[in-house]
C-alpha cells in the first residue's frame, strides 16, 4: 500500500471502474471517491459490485491530499479544475479529452477551445503501448480515448513497419452503450438503444484528431452504436501502396506486441472465436488485435477489440499510473475474461 489515491467523478462509469480496480490494487489505497449528486451515499449505491467497500462519496470541493488523483469527469471539467487537482496530488491522471491532444489548434478545431493550453505540452499521453518511455515520472497523464485506443492499437504495427502515412485508411468502429456515460438522455434509453446499429458522427468524429496526432496518419473514421454495454471494436481497412504478405503482417504485429502484457494477437484459425471480439475481453484490460488480408483489393483488414471502460478508460489509466509511479505494470489489472458471456 505505497500510494494513496482519489477518484473524481467516481459515480460515473469510468470512475466506478477506477474504484473497482483501486480497491483491489496491491500498491494503491483508495481514500476518496467524489460525487456531487450522491454525496454521503455508499459507493454501492451507485455501483452494486462495490457494496462491500467501506467508503462513501464525498464532494469534489474538498479534495484529500493524495499521491494519485484520477479525474473521470466530463470534457471541460479537468481544464477548469486542474490546479486544484494538482494541488491535491503529485500525479494526476485525466480520463477526459482535456489534455489528450498535443496542440491547442486541434482543440479549437474539434472541441470548443482550451482554457489551459500551456499544459498541453507537458501532459503525457497515457497509452503505454505507444508511449511507455514518456510515462515514468509524469505528473499529468492524459489517458487515451476508447475509440482512439482501439484504432491506434490496431494500426500501430502497420504504421511502424509498413505504411508511409499517406495511405487511405478507413476506421469503422462499433461501440457499446457505456461509452455514453451515465447521463445518456433519450437516445440512451433501453427501448431506443436496444438492438441498434446506429451511426453516430458518421463523419468528422473527434477521435480522428487523436489518431492523427499520435499515429501521424489521417484516417476516415465512423462510429456505430451496437447492442452491447461494454466494448469497442475497430475494423481498419488499410490500402498499402505496395502489396504485403501475411508473413510481413505477422512479423510486424508480433514484433510490436510480443512482449506487451495487455495485447493479444488473435487471427484466423478455426472455432467460434477467430478474430478479436469485445466480449472476449470485457471486464479486462486486454486488447485483442488481428488482421486478414484481401488479395484482390490489396487491402489489409485490421480488427481490434477492447473494453471501453477498461483498456479504453479506467484500465488504461491505472496501467499508465503504474508505469508513471514505477509500480509493476500489470498490478491490479490481471482479471481474466469470461466464457460464455453475453454482452457485458
Amino acid at each position, binding site marked *: 500500500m505505497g500510494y494513496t489515491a482519489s477518484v473524481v467523478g467516481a459515480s460515473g462509469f469510468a470512475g466506478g471502474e477506477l474504484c473497482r480496480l483501486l480497491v483491489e490494487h496491491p500498491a494503491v489505497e483508495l481514500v476518496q471517491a467524489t460525487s456531487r449528486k450522491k454525496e*454521503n*451515499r*455508499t459507493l*454501492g*449505491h451507485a455501483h452494486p459490485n462495490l*457494496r*462491500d467497500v*467501506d*467508503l*462513501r462519496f*464525498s464532494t469534489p470541493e474538498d479534495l484529500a491530499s493524495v499521491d494519485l488523483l484520477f479525474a473521470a469527469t466530463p470534457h471541460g471539467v479537468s481544464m477548469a479544475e486542474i490546479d486544484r487537482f494538482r494541488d491535491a496530488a503529485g500525479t494526476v491522471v485525466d480520463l477526459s479529452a482535456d489534455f489528450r491532444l498535443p496542440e491547442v489548434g486541434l482543440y479549437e478545431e474539434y472541441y470548443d477551445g482550451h482554457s489551459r493550453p500551456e499544459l498541453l505540452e507537458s501532459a503525457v499521453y497515457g497509452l503505454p503501448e505507444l508511449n511507455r518511455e514518456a510515462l515514468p515520472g509524469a505528473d499529468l497523464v492524459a489517458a487515451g480515448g476508447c475509440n482512439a485506443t482501439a484504432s491506434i492499437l490496431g494500426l500501430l504495427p502497420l504504421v511502424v513497419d509498413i505504411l508511409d502515412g499517406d495511405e487511405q485508411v478507413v476506421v469503422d468502429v462499433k461501440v457499446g452503450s457505456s461509452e455514453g456515460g451515465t447521463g445518456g438522455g433519450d437516445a440512451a434509453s433501453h427501448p431506443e438503444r436496444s438492438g441498434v446499429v446506429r451511426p453516430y458522427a458518421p463523419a468528422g468524429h473527434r477521435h480522428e484528431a487523436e489518431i492523427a496526432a499520435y499515429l501521424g496518419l489521417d484516417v476516415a473514421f465512423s462510429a456505430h452504436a451496437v447492442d452491447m454495454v461494454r466494448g469497442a471494436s475497430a475494423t481498419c481497412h488499410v490500402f498499402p501502396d505496395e502489396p504485403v504478405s501475411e508473413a510481413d503482417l505477422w512479423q510486424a504485429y508480433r514484433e510490436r506486441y510480443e512482449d506487451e502484457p495487455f495485447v493479444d494477437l488473435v487471427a484466423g484459425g478455426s472455432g467460434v472465436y477467430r478474430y478479436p471480439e469485445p466480449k472476449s475481453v470485457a471486464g479486462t484490460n486486454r486488447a485483442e488485435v488481428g488482421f486478414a488480408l484481401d488479395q484482390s483489393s490489396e487491402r489489409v483488414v485490421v480488427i481490434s477489440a477492447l473494453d471501453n471502460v477498461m483498456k479504453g478508460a479506467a484500465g488504461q489509466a491505472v496501467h499508465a499510473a503504474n508505469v508513471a509511479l514505477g509500480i509493476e505494470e500489470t498490478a491490479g489489472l490481471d482479471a481474466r475474461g469470461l466464457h460464455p458471456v453475453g454482452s457485458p
Partner: protein
Amino acid sequence: MVDCIECGGELSLYDDIEAGEILDCSTCGAELEVLEVDPVEVDKAPELQQDWGE
C-alpha cells in the same frame, strides 16, 4: 459505529458526519437521517418515493 434500524446491519460512517445528513445503509439500502452525532443516532428518512420503470 451504529446499526441500521431497518436491517440491523452495521452502518459505515465518516468522520465529519453532521446532524441532518442522509445516509444509506449498504445492506438494505434504507435512507437514514442522522439525528445526533455524538454518539451517532439515526432514524428512517422521510421517504422519497422513486417509482422507476413501472
